[in-house]
Each structure stands twice: as C-alpha cells, then as structure tokens.
C-alpha cells in the first residue's frame, strides 16, 4: 500500500506542477490576475506531495519491503537502521526522487517565504520552477519509477554497496542536493525576471538569500564529500578531480560567482545581464552534474545507473531547460537596461575580476571534464584528463583569485586609488613575503604551487580580517562578519591543501607483529591482528601503538572489512587527529611470510582543508542571517513609519 500511496502522491504532484505552469503562463499572458492568485498555494501543495512520496520511499526502505523492486535491489534486512534509511537515496531512482523532493520543497519555500518580489515576477518564477519540475517528474514516472513492484518478492534484498555504508551517506547526498537543487530557485528567479523584464536591485536583494542558502549547502556537501572520500577510500587522498567531484565543484564555482555579482546588482545596480546569465549557468551546471552522475556516462562509484535511455532522457531535459533559458536570455537581454558603469579600480571592479577568474576556473573544470567524452564521442579515441591538467590549468588561476579575494574587500565602491589600496594591503603583503621566505628556507625542495599556495594563504588570511580593522566590532553588521569568516575559511583551506601537497610523508611496509616503523615524527609499533565482527561484516583488525617522542602511546586500530551482502572488501583507515595534522593508518593484506601490509601517512595540517570549508559555510550562514535580520528590521520600520 505504501508504494501505491507514494506513486499516487508523485502523479498528483506532477499534475499539480502542470497546473502551476498553466496558471502562471495564462495568468501572465492574459493579464488575468484571478488565474495567478492560486499559484502560491498550488506550489505549496505540490511540494508537500513530493515530500510525501519521498517519505513513502523512506518507509519502504526502513521496513525492507522486498515486494518493491528498488528496495529488493538495494536493501537488506540485516543492514543497520541508519543504512536502511540512508540507503533510500543510495541508488538511482531514490536519489532522483530526493532531487525532485528538494525541488518541490524549494518551490514551496519560495511560495511561502518570498515577500519582496513583485507579484507578477513571483508568479513567473513559480511557473519556471513548475516547468523544471514537470521534466523531472516525467523522468521519474516514465524512466525511473522508484515504486515499481516486483512479483514474486525475493526472500532477501541484494544489499547496499559497502563503500556507501557509512554515516557520510546520511549526510552528504541530501546536503549536496539541497545545494544543487536550491540553485533552481536562482534559475527560476532569473527566468521570472526576464519574463516580466524586472531586473534590478530589488530583484537582486530578493534573490540573494536563496543563492546564499543553496551555496551554504553546496559548500557543506563538497567539504563533507571530500572528507568522506578521504577516510573511506583508504588512500589518504582528499580530491581526485574525478568527474563526479567536478560535477559538484562546477555549480559551486558558478554559485560563488553569482553570489558576488548579485551583490554588485543589489548594491550598485551594475552587472544586470551578467547576473541573470550566471543564475542560468549555475543551475545548468547542477543539471550537467546530475546528467554526468545519473546518466551512467561516467563509470564511477557514484554512477549507479548504466542505462542509455535514462541518459538520453536527462540529456533531452538538459537541452530543453538550458537551451530554453539561453534562448529567453538572448531574446530579452536587449530589454535589460544596461546597469551602472564603474571604475576599474573599485569594489565593483574587484568583483568583476572575481567573476572573471571564477568563470575561467569553471571553464577549465568543465572543459577538462567533458573533453574526454567529446573526444571519445567524435573520434572514438580514449584519453584521460586528470590532476596534472587541472592543477596546472586551474591552480594558478585559483591562486590569483585568492590573492584578489584578500584585496577586494579593502577597495572602495565606485572608485578608488590604486596606490591607496596597495598601502592598505601593506601588512598582508609583508606577511606573505615572510611566509614565502620561511617556507622556502625550511623546505627548499618544495613545489612551486604549494609554495605559492602557502604564501598567498598567509597574506589572504591577514587581509581577510582586515575589513574589521578599526571598526566598532559590536556595530559591524553580521553579514560583514560573514564575508570575513568565509574569506578566512578559503585562506585556511588553501593553507591545508598546500601543506598536504608539500609535506605529506608516506611509509609503505610489510610488517611482522612486534616491529616498529616510522613515518614523519611518529613511531608505530605493530602489535598484531585479530578477527572481529560487526552488524553485517567481519574484519581483521590491526593494533598499532603509536608514539611521538616520549608520549604515553596511543592505540590505533585499522580494519580490513569483508561484507557479505554484496560480498565486498573495504579498508577502514584509522586516523589520529592532532593539532598539527593527521596520522593515517591502513591495514592491507597479509603475504605468504605472515607479514601485514601497512600504509602509513603523516599529513601535516591536512585538517585545515575541511576546517576551512566549514568556515566558508559558517561565513555564508552568518551572512544569510545578517541579511534576513536586516530585511525584517527594515520591513518593520516601513510598517510603523
């Protein structure tokens, strides 16, 4: 019954999205306001129904209802509750339903919360949101029905990929999807504003909180995903430039650019067309990411579906939405009045440079990710584009960007003097030079990118807190703190990346029990192994006593796990976090002589990468809260004035 209920809710929601589109389209073109009146309510009910459908699927997974094909293929009665629950979206259909549920939720949230936009633009926005939803409802109902029954029901499910059986699965995909799909709101806002020819500061101030919200989730999702890959895959890498990772990075880059250009539009009424363009691009990148991951065009841990009809379907949706939005943009961009112009040396100029660099990095990532597919499609030849290309092409751009990030907030709006800006930058530049010299002297063999990375990070960290200098701290608005914290987070993350790249030490040994091996400042005594069992796995667990200098010693227990359903082996790294880095220990296989393979890494300051990511998200949150509070206060003032 639950499955039929879920399917019915999904069909109803799909029907309502058609209604939502029709009402807003006819209401806007016919000028009949009565038609537009119910659009908000329809959007809310549509969102609620999609959430209900998703809740139904969760219930099926938690109860392990094996008469549903999707549950039988991905669930298992012996799985712990958390993974029965999170396993709902650890597969193609479930994750697409999550996608649509978040889309519905976003539409409902706009309908309920948005009070700033003129009514016509809001209706156009909700119409655009419904237009997106229709396509993805069709995809779910016709090509990826999550509620299809299986008759006869099998006695046991096939289980979930053990690599995904980790608390990360409960957190990472939903967070990322809130970010991905949250950007649909920016897209719909842009389409709505193009339809009603209403691009200006009011529109920008209305759009900004939604972009910020999506961007916070994206930042969190990427940071969490990076840490998840780092500890789960067992090789100590935190970013592989894998197409699936790039798929999440591209919307983030576009959203970051949008966040900054929308500020120019809100504050100075500049960059109108460009901001609209970025809003379209940002959600397009989300859809491209969904296409890359969901179509199975890349074979990777994330591409659960290898099914060309689905790929074709998503590709068609992609063409319709991106093509349609770009066509609308091309038709209407002439009617978007040119925004205010400004001097090259000005806050606006710095933000344009930010946008230019972010777009260039986005271009590099997009080209590098799609190029192998294009070459294979056109010539049949297979080639790989990986870290050497991305680091060489995007690395220098990113360094310039972070340096600009430090300087940007110290430049005045409208026009400023280059020499004066340099004077304000004196301390950060001095710190950067000192950092450069210190690193160079202590680690002469360091690579160019890590060296410059540490240099820029040091300067940008100081520069990013400089906007608070000589200000009354308690009177500084919350969103200024948000900017400071987010920028500081970028500098911190960069320092972590550079340090990891430059100073990681590795020891690979075949060890007998009782032996001591060294990595970096650590001495690790391998005490032996013993078998243990978990809820749905068995493992060999190694015991190592690790010491640094004369400390008391600390026990680390890496595991080599074997799962039965489906039969898979994974390694659970043991990680010891200390103030200045992480010690990462992996237990491998035994050889014929009874020695155990150990992989040991000492990664100085690697934790800064995720600490920085967390700071960036926190900065976004402070900024969002600050904007919303100020908004509320000004609305109260309007009411009582």
């Amino acid at each position, binding site marked *: 019954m639950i499955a039929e209920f879920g399917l019915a809710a999904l069909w109803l929601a799909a029907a309502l999205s058609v209604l939502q589109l029709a009402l807003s389209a006819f209401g806007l073109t016919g000028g009949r306001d009565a038609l537009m009146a119910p659009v908000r309510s329809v959007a809310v009910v549509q969102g609620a129904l999609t959430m209900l459908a998703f809740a139904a699927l969760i219930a099926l997974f938690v109860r392990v209802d094996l008469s549903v094909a999707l549950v039988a293929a991905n669930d298992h009665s012996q799985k712990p509750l958390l993974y029965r629950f999170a396993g709902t979206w650890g597969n193609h259909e479930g994750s697409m339903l999550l996608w649509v549920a978040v889309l519905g939720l976003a539409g409902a949230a706009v309908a309920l919360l948005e009070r700033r936009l003129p009514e016509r633009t809001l209706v156009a926005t909700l119409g655009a949101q419904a237009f997106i939803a229709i396509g993805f409802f069709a995809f779910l109902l016709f090509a990826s029905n999550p509620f299809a029954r299986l008759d006869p029901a099998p006695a046991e499910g096939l289980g979930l990929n053990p690599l995904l059986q980790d608390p990360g699965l409960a957190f990472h995909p939903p967070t990322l999807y809130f970010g991905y799909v949250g950007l649909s709101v920016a897209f719909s806002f842009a389409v709505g504003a193009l339809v009603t020819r209403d691009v200006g500061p009011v529109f920008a101030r209305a759009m900004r909180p939604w972009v910020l919200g999506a961007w916070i989730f994206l930042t969190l999702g990427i940071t969490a995903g990076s840490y998840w890959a780092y500890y789960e*895959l*067992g*090789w*100590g*890498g935190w970013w*592989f430039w*894998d*197409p*699936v990772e790039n798929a999440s990075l591209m919307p983030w880059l576009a959203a970051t650019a949008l966040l900054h250009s929308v500020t120019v539009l809100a504050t100075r009424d500049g*960059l109108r067309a*460009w901001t609209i363009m970025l809003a379209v691009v940002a959600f397009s990148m989300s859809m491209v990411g969904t296409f890359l991951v969901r179509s199975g065009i*890349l*074979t*990777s*841990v994330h591409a659960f579906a290898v099914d060309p009809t689905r790929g074709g379907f998503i590709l068609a949706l992609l063409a319709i939405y991106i093509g349609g939005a770009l066509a609308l943009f091309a038709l209407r961009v002439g009617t978007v009045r040119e*925004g205010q*112009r*400004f*001097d*090259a040396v000005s806050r606006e*100029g710095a933000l*344009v*440079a930010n*946008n*230019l660099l972010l*777009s*260039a990095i986005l*271009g*590099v990532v997009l*080209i*590098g990710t799609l*190029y192998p597919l294009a*070459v294979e499609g056109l*010539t049949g*030849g*297979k*080639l*790989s*584009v*990986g*870290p*050497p*290309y991305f680091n060489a*092409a995007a690395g220098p*751009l990113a360094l310039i960007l972070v340096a600009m990030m430090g300087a940007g907030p110290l430049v005045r709006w409208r*026009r400023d003097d280059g020499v004066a800006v340099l004077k304000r930058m004196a301390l950060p530049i001095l710190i950067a030079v000192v950092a450069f010299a210190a690193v160079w002297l202590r680690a002469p063999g360091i690579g160019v990118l890590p060296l410059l990375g540490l240099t820029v990070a040091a300067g940008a960290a100081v520069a990013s807190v400089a906007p608070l200098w000589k200000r009354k701290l308690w009177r500084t608005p919350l969103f200024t703190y948000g900017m400071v914290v987010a920028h500081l987070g970028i500098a911190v993350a960069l320092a972590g990346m550079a340090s990891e790249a430059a100073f990681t030490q*590795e*020891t*690979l*040994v*075949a060890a007998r029990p009782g*032996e*001591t091996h060294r990595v970096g400042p650590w001495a690790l005594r391998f005490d032996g192994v013993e078998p243990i069992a978990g809820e749905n796995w068995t493992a060999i667990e190694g015991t190592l006593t690790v010491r640094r200098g004369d400390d008391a010693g600390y026990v680390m227990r890496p595991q080599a796990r074997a799962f039965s359903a489906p039969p898979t*082996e994974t*390694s659970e790294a043991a990680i010891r976090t200390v103030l200045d880095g992480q010690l990462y220990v992996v237990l*491998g296989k035994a*050889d014929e002589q009874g*020695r155990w*393979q150990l*992989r040991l890494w000492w990664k100085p300051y690697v934790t800064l990468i995720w600490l920085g990511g967390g700071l960036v998200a926190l900065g976004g949150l402070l900024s969002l809260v600050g904007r919303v509070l100020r908004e509320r206060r000004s609305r109260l003032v309007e009411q009582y004035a």
Partner: protein
Amino acid sequence: MRFFVAFALTMAPVMAAAQSGVPPAALSDTQLPDPAAEARATALMQTLRCLVCQGQSIADSDADMAGDMRALVRRRIAAGERPEDIRAWLVQRYGDWVTYDPPLNAVTWPLWALPVLLLVIGAFVARGSFRRRGRGA
C-alpha cells in the same frame, strides 16, 4: 639487528626483482630504498590511470593490476629509467587512456587553448562594464 632486518626487508624485493623478470607482488606496496627514486615513482604513479578501476590512479587503488603496475614503475625507476620514458612506454602499450596527463597533440591542444581564450574573451567583455577614467563621475 632491527636495522638489519628492516634493511633486508626493504632490499629483498629489489634483489628478487633483479634476479627474476617477474615483479614480486611486494614491490607493489613497498617503497624503494632511495627516497629520491621513490618520490619520482610516486609522482609518476599518481598520474597513471588504473585501467581496471573507476577513476582511480594506480597510486591509490586496491586492484591487483594497479599493484602490478606500481611494481613495474618502481622496478623501472630503480633501474634508472626516466619517469617520462616509462610513461611513454605505458602509453604505447595501453594508449592515452593510461595517463592522466594528456599529451599535447592535434587532438588535445584545445584543452590548453580554450581556457586562455575564455580568459581573453572574458577580460574583453568585462572591459565593457568599466567607465573610462577621466570622463567624470
């Protein structure tokens, strides 16, 4: 004594490799005794694709074939071969698919040209939004 054991353990695979043509599996997961050679080997391994994996380099894959390729890289580096020659040899054998560092040729040049082009176009477009200095506020 401990030092001797450690020394023997690290040298054993190299010596064994020198004796037989078949790489012993141990070299896939043990480092070369010379840190400089090991650093060259690691740098190369991180840019070679594991052919049976899904988007992993041979430096971070549990697959047997990745292990064999790591052993091969270490053995050749230990024998004094240059990393780029080893890469070229592998590309000749397995095609461009094996290297994450795409070679610059007729097919791949846009990969490097497009980002530069993007920047130039972007800078040109951005210039349009700037006011010329001296023309007043």
